[in-house]
């Protein structure tokens, strides 16, 4: 039931954004932005609760996101697949997306990326641990795909710019 409150609240939020903004692209952008703001704060809590240390490589990061973070916050464990040969890009496949229970997209919102908040959360959280990533939905059950697929691409390490002379 808790999760129903959560799912319904998310639904009410997306509905409200659809009323507030004129087109789907703008709503997608807002969801991403809200997610980003959540992510930059969520990471701190995540690190504290999971007591996970620094990841050795992007593969480890992928595993932590799927097996620890998703499990902890959404109660599901996506699978990590479709690695690019260079190892800088992978997919999270969600059999069940808890955000979309009871959801159907109306015909006039065919370009809405309903769960786009998740992309923002991932981007925001990883940015706080010095990783710039590109996150987007590649497949979505709401739009008729069999599974939900989130594609993540590593862009670069963010160097910490400390002011000169500051330790």
């Amino acid at each position: 039931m808790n999760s129903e409150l959560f799912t319904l609240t998310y639904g009410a939020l997306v509905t409200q954004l659809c009323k507030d903004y004129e087109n789907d692209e703008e709503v997608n952008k807002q969801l991403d932005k809200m997610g980003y703001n959540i992510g930059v704060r969520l990471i701190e809590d995540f690190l504290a609760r999971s007591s996970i240390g620094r990841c050795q490589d992007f593969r480890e990061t992928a595993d932590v996101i799927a097996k620890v973070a998703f499990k902890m916050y959404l109660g599901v464990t996506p699978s990590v697949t479709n690695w690019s040969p260079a190892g800088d890009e992978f997919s999270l496949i969600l059999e069940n997306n808890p955000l979309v229970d009871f959801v159907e997209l109306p015909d006039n919102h065919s370009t809405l990326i309903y769960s786009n908040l998740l992309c923002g959360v991932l981007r925001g959280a990883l940015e706080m641990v010095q990783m710039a990533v590109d996150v987007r939905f590649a497949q979505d059950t709401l739009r008729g795909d069999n599974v939900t697929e989130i594609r993540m691409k590593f862009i670069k390490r963010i160097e910490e710019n400390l002011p000169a002379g500051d330790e």
Partner: protein
Amino acid sequence: MSSDKFLQDYLHFTFIQSHIYELSRQRPTDRAVSVSVLEGMGFRVGQGLIERLTRDSPSFKDELDIMKFVCKDFWTKVFRRQIDNLRTNHQGTYVLQDNKFALLTQLSSGKQYLDQAPKYLAFSCGVVRGALSNLGLDSVVTAEVSVMPSCKFQVVIQKL
């Protein structure tokens, strides 16, 4: 605190928080509008929740019976604890007191954010009003906080 419990409170809270932030940025002068938007969102959520919760329950015999259901079953499922105290004047006014309201536990318990609380509670008031509305009761729901995180909801049933 278990993680799923945390998930709900935290994410829920941040949804509302970012929405409040966005709304106040867009309509800086119109605080009433953002509160009513949040109330409206809560209303829809309350309608959806009560529909799922009452699917298998027998029909209610009167207004008080409905209020008791809201205070016990509904509150427990949605906010994870029962209402601590229910009072009524038997003329359609009810005061529901929750001494540790789930959505306020994320705010600091000092006096610092006391004036911010109504914004966070607008959503919850909407949830209660939505639930009652689907059970056939039109109501006006307001909330009042004097000491965090305790909260009093006043429900006034609108007679036709």
